[in-house]
């Protein structure tokens, strides 16, 4: 013991060779014998005023702790430095304190006041670290102080401090579980927190302190679902696994009407999409579905969870992928579970430990849902370099996946495995073959033959394992296999593995009537070697003897008696018992006649064939991905996965005030102003409308159906969007330094969300517009087409603005919502891209903003607040609108320079009293302005923009879309481009320039009369080109 610390110090000293005079290597070596003296040098260093010495000393002390050496006697010397100004020293002192405070409780109290001071520090990082250390000191006396600190921190401005508070909750709980009630209050408060930073930590605290209080989740359920993608990975795992449990208590089983679903999968699918489209706000679907019960309609919240977790299958973290996989396995309808297979297979290419865990779970899943993994059969093939434990798990999965169709491949694969050098693995393979043979009747004989061939293998283990498996297989159809039994009987001479010998003996005994000549001879041999056999073999010898005696007593009577006599004096009492028992049964004596009459029935009763089952058969009653599942035993603290409820609990508990509103207002709105807000209401609640099927929208709904799901989603997301953004922002500004990465993520997703909604709603608008156009086609357009290079050309020559104005009225994208009137407290804001050049700055896209006030008070001082824009993007604000009376509407124009990207411009819309976070994301087609050029110029420019800058896509124009004007109109709707006159009749050319950089965008559509067409876009701006092609193709083929 005494030598060890010296070694520790030696190392510590050498770690910092910079200060040889205080390294004291030789000195500490010299005084190691006197224990109380050995840290004197360190104490001295800690007592000096020099920070560098203190730091050196602390480093050596921490090094000792890390090596597991005891440094507790330095506690007083260290604790003095808790208030040290040097941050490096302080950090190390904290580390020391957390480690030893529990052992030196009284002294630890000395440090408390420092932390209490730290809790009030203006710097959030210091507040957080003070709370962190304070809560990590496991001293029961300070429980009230901790409680106070946690409560305070839970309402701190900084999300990072709140996160630390969430972390502190389980610490305090483990120190003093009496505080539970108070802690639950704090948890409840933190659960309502809207930052992604806190979400994971507080759910963790929830799981440790009060996992049974599922009621706390209701109000936060939707928020958690929506935040999920932005939470850090560890938090995601915890939240997903908690939500899995939650969903099991709150929703109905999606598989309860499996048959119904299967009969009409299409319908069910759309049905579920539909009510999901209503968003988390509307409880309508759920309430109407409840009384009916059949057919099953998924709760929109259930759908929300499934939808929001799905992208996480793409996470880099294996733990997150597994968490989502188990969620889908436990919660998703059968038809949807399949998506997880690919992601799980991906994990198999990760580290072997990850493979080990994933394979365990795949093994369980593959029993229930074989079809899911069948396409990936080859991914489970075994490589000779796999560790044995992985090999065996893969084998398990392969066996589970084997079916009538793929069995030949699987068996061929197994054949290679049998030749492996890894004997444990070979044994497992043989077992696997046995299981395949029992499960798939068709190959039973093939397998059996294969196994019999293995009996001549040189490796005894292989032979033994084969015998055991053959025994099980033969039991299924013994009559046909007399030959094999004979073959096995011969093996008793050579094979030494007890289990195999026992199996052979049992087989011969059981089916002795098939081998009447051999059986007695085997018994003779066994009797001879009886004393030398293993116990299990001896038992089987007795068995064999008894059976033979009953069937063929003439030949075997003496042998049997001999064996029984030997057994009577065996050392093992099991064998002695068995012998006694058997003798009483089979050898009729005067008294015991009653039983011996039934001896034949007892011994030779037909026995059911064993069922070879996977050891993973019933594991799925444990939540997948859990430790308990892996161990197949309940681990401490495991939360049972509840069964689905019979009746769905009241779904309205998850309602938060605002969405309840949205529903009614939606309705009103649609009734009030159906026609003028055509496009608007569609973006809002398109699918609902088609369900209602007013005659008008019916025609539109057909063409929309493809975009339906998308636009449905957007409606639910867009009203969340604004909340989320504001939350994000609040958290972000404070947390900038520490959470750079997550921040970026947050940004991304919030803008993405915006983009999603706007693009999908604009899609539906486009369709609606074309619809209108078809009814009353713009007459000027026909002219254009006929005239070709005629009079309009002259008109074009006057400069870009006029044609632009000519083009734009028909093609300017429809209104899109910026702020819903519910979210805006009565203020509704829409925007349109006017396609007119913005007067202030030619690089800006001009956006018309329409305000309407539907509240009953005037809205004052509408203006744009400080925009928080991605770099490069700039905004020209609209002049402040002083007042907007109730019921009134007004329009303002603002300019946005999108910098040739489709990034959203996020800014605040301020009224006198409120601020709203809004974002405008332009469709790519709005980022350009038409230019005029002649055919020759066009060709010349096109010639310059080949290669990388050229993007070509083939498409087929639908029938309705072959006439000139429709094509032109569709293209110009999508993109703000000018038509270039062209000689050929079936070629269309358009040109424009991007607004910011002025790069040319040239679009050529070469349409054949058959409908085949080729679209070419030439532009320096690759990204814009690609997106434009996509948009145009979509518009044309719709």
């Amino acid at each position, binding site marked *: 013991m005494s030598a060890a610390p010296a070694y520790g110090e030696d190392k510590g000293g050498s770690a910092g060779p910079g200060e040889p005079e205080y390294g004291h290597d030789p000195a500490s070596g010299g005084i190691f014998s006197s224990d109380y003296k050995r840290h004197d040098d360190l104490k001295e260093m800690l007592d000096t005023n020099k920070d560098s010495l203190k730091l050196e000393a602390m480093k050596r002390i*921490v090094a000792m702790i890390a090596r597991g050496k005891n440094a507790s006697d330095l506690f007083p010397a260290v604790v003095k430095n808790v208030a040290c100004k040097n941050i490096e020293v302080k*950090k190390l002192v904290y580390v020391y304190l957390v480690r030893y405070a529990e052992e030196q409780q009284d002294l630890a109290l000395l440090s408390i006041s420092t932390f209490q001071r730290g809790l009030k520090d203006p710097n959030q990082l210091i507040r957080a670290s003070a709370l962190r250390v304070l809560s990590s000191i496991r001293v029961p006396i300070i429980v009230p102080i901790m409680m106070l600190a946690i409560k305070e921190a839970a309402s701190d401005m900084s999300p990072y401090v709140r996160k630390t508070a969430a972390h*502190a909750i389980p610490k305090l709980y483990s120190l003093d579980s009496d505080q539970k009630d108070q802690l639950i209050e704090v948890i409840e408060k933190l659960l309502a927190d809207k930052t992604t930073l806190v979400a994971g930590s507080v759910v963790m605290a929830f799981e440790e302190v009060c996992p049974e209080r599922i009621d706390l989740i209701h109000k936060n359920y939707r928020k958690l679902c929506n935040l999920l993608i932005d939470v850090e*990975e560890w938090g995601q*795992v915890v939240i997903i696994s908690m939500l899995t449990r939650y969903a099991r208590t709150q929703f109905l089983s999606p598989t309860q009407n499996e048959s119904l679903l299967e009969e009409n999968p299409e319908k069910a699918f759309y049905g579920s999409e539909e009510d999901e489209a209503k968003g988390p706000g509307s409880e309508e679907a759920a309430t109407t579905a409840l009384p009916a019960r059949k057919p099953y309609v998924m709760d929109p919240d259930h759908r929300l969870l499934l939808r929001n977790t799905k992208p996480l299958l793409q996470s880099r973290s294996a*733990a997150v992928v597994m968490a989502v996989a188990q969620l889908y396995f436990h919660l998703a309808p059968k038809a949807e579970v399949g998506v997880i297979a690919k992601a799980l297979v991906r994990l198999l290419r990760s580290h072997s430990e990850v493979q080990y865990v994933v394979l365990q779970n795949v093994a369980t899943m593959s029993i229930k849902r074989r079809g899911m993994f069948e396409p990936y059969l080859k991914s489970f093939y075994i490589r000779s370099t796999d560790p044995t434990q992985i090999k065996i798990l893969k084998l398990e999965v392969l066996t589970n996946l084997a079916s009538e169709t793929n069995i030949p491949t699987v068996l061929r694969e197994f054949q290679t495995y049998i030749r492996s050098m890894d004997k444990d693995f070979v044994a497992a393979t043989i077992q696997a073959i046995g299981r395949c043979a029992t499960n798939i009747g068709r190959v039973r004989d093939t397998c059996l033959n294969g196994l019999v061939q293995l009996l001549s293998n040189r490796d005894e283990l292989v032979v033994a394992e084969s015998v055991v498996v053959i025994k099980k297989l033969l039991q299924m159809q013994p009559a046909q296999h007399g030959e094999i039994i004979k073959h096995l009987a011969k093996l008793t001479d050579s094979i030494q593995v007890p289990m195999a010998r026992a199996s052979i003996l049992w087989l011969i005994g059981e089916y002795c009537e098939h081998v009447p000549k051999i059986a007695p001879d085997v018994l003779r041999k066994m009797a001879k070697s009886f004393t030398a056999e293993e116990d299990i073999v001896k038992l089987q010898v007795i068995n064999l003897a008894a059976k033979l005696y009953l069937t063929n007593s003439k030949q075997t009577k003496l042998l049997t008696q001999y064996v029984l006599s030997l057994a009577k004096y065996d050392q093992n009492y099991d064998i002695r018992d068995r012998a006694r028992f058997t003798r009483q049964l089979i050898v009729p004596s005067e008294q015991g006649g009653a039983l011996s009459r039934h001896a034949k029935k007892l011994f030779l009763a037909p026995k059911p064939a064993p069922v070879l089952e996977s050891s993973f058969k019933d594991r799925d009653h444990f939540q997948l991905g859990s430790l308990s599942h892996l161990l197949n035993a309940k681990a401490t*603290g495991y939360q049972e996965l509840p069964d689905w409820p019979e009746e769905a609990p009241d779904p309205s508990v998850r309602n938060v005030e605002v969405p309840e509103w949205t529903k009614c207002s939606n309705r009103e709105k649609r009734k009030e102003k159906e026609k003028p807000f055509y496009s608007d209401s569609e973006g809002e609640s398109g699918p609902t409308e088609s369900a209602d099927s007013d005659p008008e929208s019916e025609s539109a709904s057909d063409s929309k159906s493809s975009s339906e799901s998308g636009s449905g989603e957007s409606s639910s997301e867009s009203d969340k969007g604004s909340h989320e953004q504001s939350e994000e922002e609040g958290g972000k500004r404070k947390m900038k330094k520490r959470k750079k990465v997550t921040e970026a993520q947050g940004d991304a997703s919030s803008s993405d969300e915006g983009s999603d909604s706007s693009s999908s709603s604009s899609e539906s608008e486009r369709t609606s517009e074309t619809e209108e156009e078809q009814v009353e086609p713009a007459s000027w357009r026909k002219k254009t087409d006929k005239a070709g290079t005629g009079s309009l050309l002259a008109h074009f020559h006057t400069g870009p603005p006029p044609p632009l104005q000519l083009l734009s009225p028909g093609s300017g994208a429809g209104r899109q919502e910026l702020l819903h009137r519910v979210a805006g407290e009565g203020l509704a804001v829409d925007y349109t891209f006017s396609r007119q050049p913005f007067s202030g700055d030619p690089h800006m896209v001009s956006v018309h903003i329409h305000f309407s006030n539907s509240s009953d008070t005037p809205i004052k001082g509408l203006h744009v607040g400080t925009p928080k824009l991605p770099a490069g993007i700039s905004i020209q604000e609209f002049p402040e609108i002083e007042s907007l009376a109730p019921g009134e509407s007004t329009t303002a124009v603002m300019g946005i320079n999108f910098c040739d990207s489709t990034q959203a411009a996020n800014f605040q819309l301020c009224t006198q009293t409120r601020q709203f976070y809004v974002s405008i994301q332009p469709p790519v087609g709005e980022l350009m302005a038409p230019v005029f050029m002649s055919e020759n110029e066009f060709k010349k420019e096109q010639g310059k923009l080949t290669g990388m800058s050229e993007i070509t896509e083939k498409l087929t124009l639908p029938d309705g879309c072959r006439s000139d004007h429709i094509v032109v109109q569709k293209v110009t709707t999508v993109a703000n481009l000018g038509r270039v006159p062209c000689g050929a009749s079936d070629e269309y050319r358009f040109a424009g320039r991007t607004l910011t950089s002025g790069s040319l965008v040239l679009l050529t559509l070469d349409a054949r009369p058959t409908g085949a067409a080729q679209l070419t876009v030439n532009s320096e701006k690759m990204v814009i080109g690609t997106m434009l092609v996509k948009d145009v193709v979509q518009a044309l083929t719709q």
Partner: protein
Amino acid sequence: MIHSLFLINSSGDIFLEKHWKSVVSRSVCDYFFEAQERATEAENVPPVIPTPHHYLLSVYRHKIFFVAVIQTEVPPLFVIEFLHRVVDTFQDYFGVCSEPVIKDNVVVVYEVLEEMLDNGFPLATESNILKELIKPPTILRTVVNTITGMEKGETHRELPSWVKALNNLLPAFCLIPISGSTITAEIQGVIDACVKLTGMPDLTLSFMNPRLLDDVSFHPCVRFKRWESERILSFIPPDGNFRLLSYHVSAQNLVAIPVYVKHNISFRDSSSLGRFEITVGPKQTMGKTIEGVIVTSQMPKGVLNMSLTPSQGTHTFDPVTKMLSWDVGKINPQKLPSLKGTMSLQAGASKPDENPTINLQFKIQQLAISGLKVNRLDMYGEKYKPFKGIKYMTKAGKFQVRT
């Protein structure tokens, strides 16, 4: 969650311990040692070992066992993923993660571990955030940079305020051909990025042929929706090295396998000598050289020794482990490397019935075997012009030839 962490070297010494809650005695590792003994080989130690009061979850990397002690139910992958993250972090901090390096930097290691978990729940696990909290050792850092730079062959150039290097690695493609036909092959690739840009650059990376990618997983910075809709990687990168994307190309799109192996390994019943011959040759490499070729094979137990002559490179045969290893180097298509000779077998014993599997490692520079091509990388949000570079590489994954 995670109670404690023990670092154990291959000789069974606990050389570092860290506790995030009350101290757990190191004697708990005895259960681990038992399991280790039973497993014979390090990689066969079960990753999860239940003990009466605790559960031990371990990963084995760089010849070190990282053993986490937990007390209550927790998803095992959560812990395993975390342990791997710890190793990655160490690697990022010190360049290599080995016992001597950890011992030399024990204070930094301890501090890093302290920051990574709070009360056993992960706190800061991104290495760029950690590096802001705890500075990596400076001298080492520079050395490390040059080393990794060389290793990965990155286009890595220090420029005044920023450096940008993108590195596209496409390794791990596994296949097991038997008698000429490929049993299974797949391409698994990653795009590792090294970004050193100031400010908040917003990058977009587009591919020429994104449809090729069958299954992808992203760094958390990548905007998922953008990928879904446009197949463009849009992200605000963290500083330094990170794995932007890993992907999988399914077997249907498989490009030809660039190497072939001809083998003739035969044992005869009568004699105690066996013949052994391997030739490696290139196949459709688009003019690129195959380098770093190493052939390894686990010979059957019955093989006592081998006397072989390689046409190039060096070879070793370990008579104890029966491992044959042949370091070939580059393949010259004009003169194909081969390894010929005899095996001496145990006298009297019958011929081994198992055939050795041949494992192959190789690298091809400047070639992505999947055919994946980066189209362009654009930066938004910052005014300066970044330095961009890309490097393609193909590495054999678990390339096995069954004989």
